[in-house]
C-alpha cells in the first residue's frame, strides 16, 4: 500500500517538474502540486486556429481549486481573438469530464500581457512543425 502511495507521489512530483520545466518562469511559478493534474489535463485543449494546447500557448494564467470547484484565469493572444468562446467552452468541458470536478469558473484576464515569451518549449516545437517560427 505504502509502495503504491509512494509511486503515485513520485508520479505527481515528476508531472509537476515536467510541466514547470516546459513553461516560461512566469507560468511555472503558478503551477502548484495540487493543480498540476489540471494543468496537464488542459494540454488536451487545442487552440482552434493553431493546433497547440492552451497551456503551451501560455493562455492559462492560473488555476485554483477548492474540492470540486475549479477556477481558471485565462488570457488570449489579442482582445479581438475570434476563438474566445470556443476556448472557454473547451476548457470548461475538459475539466468537467474529471469525476471530482463539479463546477468550473473561467475568468478572462487582461492583467497579463500575452506575448510569444509565454509559449512553452513544447509549444514552440509544435508551432515550428506547423510552419510558424517564434
Amino acid at each position, binding site marked *: 500500500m505504502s509502495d503504491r502511495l509512494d509511486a503515485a507521489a513520485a508520479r505527481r512530483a515528476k508531472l509537476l517538474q515536467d510541466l514547470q520545466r516546459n513553461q516560461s518562469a512566469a507560468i511555472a511559478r503558478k503551477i502548484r502540486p495540487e493543480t498540476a493534474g489540471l494543468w496537464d489535463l488542459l494540454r488536451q485543449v487545442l487552440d*482552434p*486556429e*493553431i493546433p497547440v494546447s492552451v497551456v503551451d500557448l501560455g493562455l492559462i494564467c492560473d488555476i485554483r481549486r477548492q474540492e470540486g470547484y475549479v477556477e481558471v484565469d485565462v488570457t488570449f493572444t489579442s482582445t*479581438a481573438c*475570434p*476563438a*474566445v468562446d*470556443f476556448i472557454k467552452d473547451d476548457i470548461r468541458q475538459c475539466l468537467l469530464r474529471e469525476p471530482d470536478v463539479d463546477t468550473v469558473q473561467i475568468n478572462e484576464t487582461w492583467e497579463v500581457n500575452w506575448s510569444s515569451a509565454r509559449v512553452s518549449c513544447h509549444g514552440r516545437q509544435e508551432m515550428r512543425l506547423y*510552419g510558424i517560427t517564434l
Partner: protein
Amino acid sequence: MSTAVDTLLRQKVQEGSLVESIDEMTEGYKRELTHIVTVSGDTELLSAPAYYYAARKAPSVNSMISALAIIQDELSHAHIAYRILEELGVDRDWLMYEREPHEFRYPYAFDIPLDSWVELCVANALYDQAGYTLLGDVFEHTSYGPWKRGLVKVSKEETFHLLHGRRWMKKIVDSGDEGKQLVQQAMDWMFPLTVEWFGLPDDLKTHTTQLEYRMKGLTNDQLRAGWMDEVIPFCCSIGLKLPVHRNGDDSAWELEYELPLRFDAAEKRWLWDEHIGWDQVVKRWKARGPRNEAMIEQIQRSRGDFSWMFKGL
C-alpha cells in the same frame, strides 16, 4: 508558341515538374491558370460581403468578432490570388474595381442572401468545406509553384472557418427542438446548393485542359464526392437528415435526387420533382443571382460614391 512546346509542357507537368514563372508558360497554360485563379480569387472576395450580410445578425459581440475574423481571412485569401494574377499580367485595379458585376466568377450560392446567423454557420460548414476541398486539391496537385506555396496560409485559416461552422451548428442543434429545426431547414436548402457548387458532372464536362496542365488533380465528380465524405458524417452525427444514402460504410454517398433541380428562391425551397437540364443551370449561373450587384457595389464603393474620401491616399 507552338503546339509541340505546349505538348511538352503538359507532359513535363504531368511528370511532376512545377512551373515557377511566366517565362516557362505557354499561352494555353497562362490562359487556363488565369481563369482558374480568377475563379478562386473572386470566390474568396465575394464570400466576404456574402458572410458580412449575415454576420450583422451575430448573437453576441464575441460571435460577431469570430465572423469578422473569418471575413478578414477571406479578403486576405483573395489578395493572394489577385497578387498571382498580377504576376500573370492582369491589372489588379481592373479586377477589383472595373469589372461589371456579372463578370465576377464565383459560385452561385453566394448570390443568394444568407439571412440569419444559422445560415452563416451552415455556410461556414458547407461552403468553406467546398472551398477547402477544391483548394486542398490544388495545393496537393497544382503545377504552379507560387500558387501552391500561397495556399499554405489559406488552408490553415480555412480550417478555423470549418470548425466555426460545425461548432455553431452543433451548439444550435443541441439547444433544443427549435434550434435543430432551424439548422435542418438551412441544411435542406444549402446542401443541394453546395452539391451544385462543384459544377457539371464529369460525363458532361468536355473541358479537361486544367487537369492536363495539372492546375488541379481531381475531376468535378471526385471533388464533389470528397466534399460529401467530409460533410455528411458530421451532419449525421449531430442528428441532421440529408437526401443521401450509401450501401455500406466503404461505399460512396449517393444523392437521393437527380441533379440538377429547379428551386423556389423566394422560399428557399427545392422542387424535388422538377428536374431540369444542366444547360438551364449554366444559364442561371451566367445571369447571376439576387445579391450579385449589391455585393459588387459594396466592394467597388471606394471608387464610386466615396471616391472623394480616398483622394490623396
